[in-house]
C-alpha cells in the first residue's frame, strides 16, 4: 500500500514508494530506498513537502499474521510439485522468511543451505518452527526490511 505523507512526518526506516525528484528532474532519492534522518533534512532543504512511502505500519499484528498465513498456504500449493528440489525449496523458504519480515533468518538459512557441510541438514529440522504462526518478537519487528545502518 502506498501512502503519501508530509516530509515532516517521515520516519527513518520507511521505504520510498516513489522516487523523489526536483522540479528540474534531478533525482534526490530512488524508489525503494530507505528514509534516513539525513534524507529527511535534505528534502526539507530542497522544499519537498510530501513523499510516498510503502505503508506497512498501517497493518495490525493480526493483519500481518493473516497475510503471512495466506502466503504460506498459497506457497504450499504453488510449490507442490517441486518440493523435492533443494534449490526451489530454498526459494520457498526465502519467501516465507521475507513474508515474516525476517531477513536475517532468511540470510542465515540460505548461507547454511549453501554450505556443503552436513550441518546444512540442521536447518531443515527448524522447519516446523518457522512455519508456525509468528513468534512474539516478530510483532515488534514487523516494520523491518534490511536495516540500512
Amino acid at each position, binding site marked *: 500500500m502506498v501512502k503519501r505523507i508530509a516530509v515532516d512526518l517521515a520516519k527513518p526506516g520507511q521505504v520510498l514508494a516513489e522516487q523523489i525528484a526536483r522540479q528540474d528532474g534531478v533525482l534526490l532519492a530512488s524508489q525503494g530506498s530507505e528514509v534516513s534522518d539525513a534524507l529527511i533534512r535534505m528534502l526539507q532543504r530542497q522544499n519537498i513537502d510530501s513523499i510516498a512511502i510503502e505503508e506497512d505500519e498501517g497493518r495490525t499484528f493480526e493483519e500481518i499474521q493473516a497475510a503471512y498465513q495466506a502466503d504460506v498456504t*498459497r506457497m504450499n*500449493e504453488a*510449490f507442490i510439485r*517441486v518440493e523435492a528440489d533443494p534449490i*526451489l525449496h530454498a*526459494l520457498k523458504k526465502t519467501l516465507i522468511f*521475507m513474508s515474516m519480515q525476517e531477513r536475517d533468518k532468511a540470510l542465515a538459512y540460505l548461507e547454511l543451505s*549453501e554450505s556443503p557441510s552436513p550441518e546444512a541438514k540442521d536447518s531443515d529440522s527448524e522447519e516446523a518452527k518457522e512455519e508456525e504462526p509468528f513468534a512474539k518478537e516478530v510483532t515488534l519487528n514487523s516494520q523491518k526490511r534490511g536495516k540500512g545502518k
Partner: protein
Amino acid sequence: MPPTVIQDRISAKKEVRRIKNLPTVPGIVAKISRIVENPETSVAEVGRLISQDQVLSAKVLRMANSAFFGMSRKINTIPQALIILGFEVVKGLVLTSSVFDMIQKSMAGLWEHSIGCAAASGVIAAHLGRDDAEEVLVAGLLHDLGKVVLALNLPEEMRLVKEKVENEHLYFYEAENQVLDFDHAEIGQWLAEHWNLPESLAEPMRLHHKPEKAVLKPEWCAIVHIADIITRAKGFGNAGDMMVPPLSMAAWEILGLKKTDFLPIMEKLEPKLNSLKDLTALN
C-alpha cells in the same frame, strides 16, 4: 487413443498453422522493422514514426518510466527513450504496448504475469551484472505471447486446457500438450516467425520451459526461465496455472547462481512488483 482425438489434434495444428490470420503484426512494428532495414535511417526518424501514434507513445513512455527500469530521470519523449534504453528495448516496448489489449483480453492475469516476469528478468540480469538487462526484460515481457494466440484463436481448445489444469492439477503447458500436442512455447515461435521478431526474442518464447536447449542466447533463456519460476512463486499474476514449474539445472548453472542470490534478488524485485501494479491498466 480414439481417432477423433487424433483428428482433432491434427486439425488444431492445422488451425494454428493457418493462423496466418494469426494476429497480424501490429502495423507500427512492421513499419519500424521496414524503415530500420535502411541503414540510413536515423534515431530521430524512428522516434518520429513512433511518436506519430500518441496513444502508443504514451503507453511506451509509461513503461519506460515505470519501476522496470528505475530511471533516475524522467524519460519524456520517444527519442529520449531510444537514446537511453536503446532501439531494441523501445521496439520491444512498442510491440508490447500494441499487443497489450490483446494480452489483457485473452487471459485474466496474463498481463500481470508478463510484467512480473519482465521485472524479475531485469532484476536477475542486473544482479548478475549484465549490461543487457533491459533487453532481457523485454524477452521476459513477451515470453508467453503464445498463450494469447491460443486464447484468441483456439478458444475451444483453451477451454479444454483450462479444464484439465483445474481438474488434473497439471501445468498449463502439460495440459496444452495433452489437448493440442504442442504448447504456447511452440505457438510463440510461430508467431515470432510470422512477425519477424529477432531470434533473440523468439528463443526465450520457444524455450523458457527448456532453456537447456538454447543456442543463440542461452543466458537469456535461463534468466526468463528462472524469472518465470520466481514470478509464480510470488503468486504475481496468473499464467494459466498457479504452480511453480521445475527448475532446469542447466539454466541455474549457466548463470552461476547460488541459493544465497535469492535474497538480494527478491529484495530488489518486491518493491518493483508493488509499484508495477500501476501498469496493470496501461490506458
